[in-house]
């Protein structure tokens, strides 16, 4: 009985070792091996119709992509390639299974499956987008965290949809398109917040985060500890105000460009139809939860953009001059001054009228005296 136990243990060990060795053959395929061939711009395959299709993958662009940055191996996606046989002209099966983004991006796929895009696809609409139709070539998908609202819209929605043809009910639609991402209204369950991006008024362009941290002589990681002087984890109005002279000294005239963006989140793939936010007060209200989350966004060259929390009240201060939403970010001090102006007019009229009424006997007496 004891010998039997050892025998089973031996079999298990052998099986595990074989599994490991077998798996190793696929793990061992390095991206560099794939790029030995696919890194050649002339790499093509012939199609049945006589034309050719490129099989080239730009190594630099792949390395800069979100997949490259996260060390995703070619064979993680092209999983039907388990080994390379260099004795063959093509060292892997010629016919490969399609790439399934959902193998890794399951939450995104689930949100997409609920979307108007997936439903249109199910009904046979070939124009309805799949992953690649929005994200383009999956070899080069870049992080879009650093992209502005306009860049995100141009890279995705606007490629198929012309928003100016719709939204007739929306006042100042172009202003809305400029400052609010499509998915803010057209995507359910996704977190929305305000981005404040340093903007150079002279150059009429956004200031890269690298320049900001350089001027402040800090790094992206140490930015908060440098700027958040009271260490409450939030950039307060006085802390933001203190930055201005530093930038002016460096020859930069920055303002903060505000925009309404969604968090890069799987839920943003659930684009809805007929359920878009049409209630103005969802945003245009001092109680709107969207404006309780405000971040200073510093962009990195790789497309990432660290978000640093900002006191939401800053939006209502006089220090953020280039971002304003009706109701939501109204400046309280103006209401106080306004009330004084209004009461001044009423008090003048009321006071003068009261005196006129009180002095009626004086005028009456004078008239009678005449």
């Amino acid at each position, binding site marked *: 009985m004891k010998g039997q136990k050892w025998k089973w243990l031996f079999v298990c060990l052998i099986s595990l070792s074989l599994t490991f060795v077998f798996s190793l053959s696929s793990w061992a395929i390095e991206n560099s091996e794939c790029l030995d061939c696919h890194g050649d711009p002339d790499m093509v395959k012939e199609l049945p119709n006589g034309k050719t299709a490129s099989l080239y993958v730009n190594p630099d662009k792949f390395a800069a992509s979100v997949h490259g940055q996260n060390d995703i191996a070619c064979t993680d996606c092209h999983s039907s390639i388990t080994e390379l046989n260099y004795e063959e002209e093509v060292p892997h099966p010629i016919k490969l299974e399609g790439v399934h983004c959902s193998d890794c991006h399951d939450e995104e796929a689930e949100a997409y499956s609920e979307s108007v895009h997936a439903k249109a696809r199910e009904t046979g609409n070939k124009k309805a987008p799949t992953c690649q139709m929005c994200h383009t070539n999956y070899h080069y998908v870049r992080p879009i965290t650093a992209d502005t609202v306009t860049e995100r819209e141009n890279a995705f929605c606007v490629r198929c949809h012309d928003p100016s043809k719709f939204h007739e009910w929306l*006042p*100042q639609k172009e202003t809305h398109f400029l400052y609010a991402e499509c998915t803010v209204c057209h995507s359910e369950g996704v977190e929305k917040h305000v981005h404040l991006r340093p903007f150079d008024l002279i150059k009429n362009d956004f200031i890269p985060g690298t320049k900001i941290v350089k001027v402040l002589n800090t790094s992206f990681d140490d930015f908060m500890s440098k700027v958040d002087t009271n260490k409450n984890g939030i950039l307060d109005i006085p802390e933001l105000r203190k930055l201005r002279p530093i930038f002016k000294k460096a020859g930069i005239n920055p303002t903060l460009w505000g925009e309404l963006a969604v968090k890069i989140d799987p839920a943003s793939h659930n684009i809805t139809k007929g359920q878009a936010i049409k209630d103005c007060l969802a945003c245009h209200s001092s109680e709107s939860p969207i404006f309780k989350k405000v971040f200073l966004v510093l962009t990195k060259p790789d497309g990432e953009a660290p978000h640093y929390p900002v006191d939401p009240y800053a939006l209502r201060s006089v220090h953020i001059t*280039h971002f*304003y939403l009706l109701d939501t970010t109204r400046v309280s001090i103006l209401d106080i001054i306004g009330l004084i102006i209004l009461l001044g007019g009423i008090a003048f009229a009321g006071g003068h009228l009261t005196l006129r009424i009180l002095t009626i006997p*004086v005028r009456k007496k004078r008239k009678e005296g005449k």
Partner: protein
Amino acid sequence: MKRIYLHPVPVRIWHWVHALGILLLVLTGAQIRYADHVHFMSLESAVHWHNVIGFIVLFDFFLWFCFYVFTGRIKTYFPSIEELIHGTVRQAIFYGFGVFRGDPNPFHATPDNKFNPLQKTAYLGIVLILVPIQILTGLLLWDIAQFRPIVDFLGGVKVVDAVHVLLFFFFASFICAHFYLATLGHTPWAHFKAMITGWEEEPEEGH
């Protein structure tokens, strides 16, 4: 009772279009600014009507301005040095003391000179400075994306909005004061009647 034809038909039309327009702009403006607290109409409708009425007032004001400039009538809004220094004081003393004692109004309107020195000075600022600023800021805020370079040049959307809002409060206050001051004719309704019929009545004993 002396009767003077003070307000010709076009002036009366301009006045009442402006009056109704400004009143509605103030009301819709209040709804726009306080949409989260005021609910007499939706924000969307308030913005729509504020824009429509804003353009009517803009057009109406433009016509009035051109007419007054090209006919030279605009000079009625410019007080002379004497009026500015002595006239305003004289008129202010009348409104502050004389009117309560029953003193005669030191100013007598004529068709060519229908504003007293205080009115001239106030209207010069209101009609030639504040109204144009309000129209201009309103125009910029009507389409921020289109006018963004100008808005940015002026200091940003919040700055332009602040000017527009402060003037909104001013005009709200002005409506109260203007309405009250209009009751200071020889009877409380005399000036109102004049702005409807065109004929201002003035007691003979005032002369």
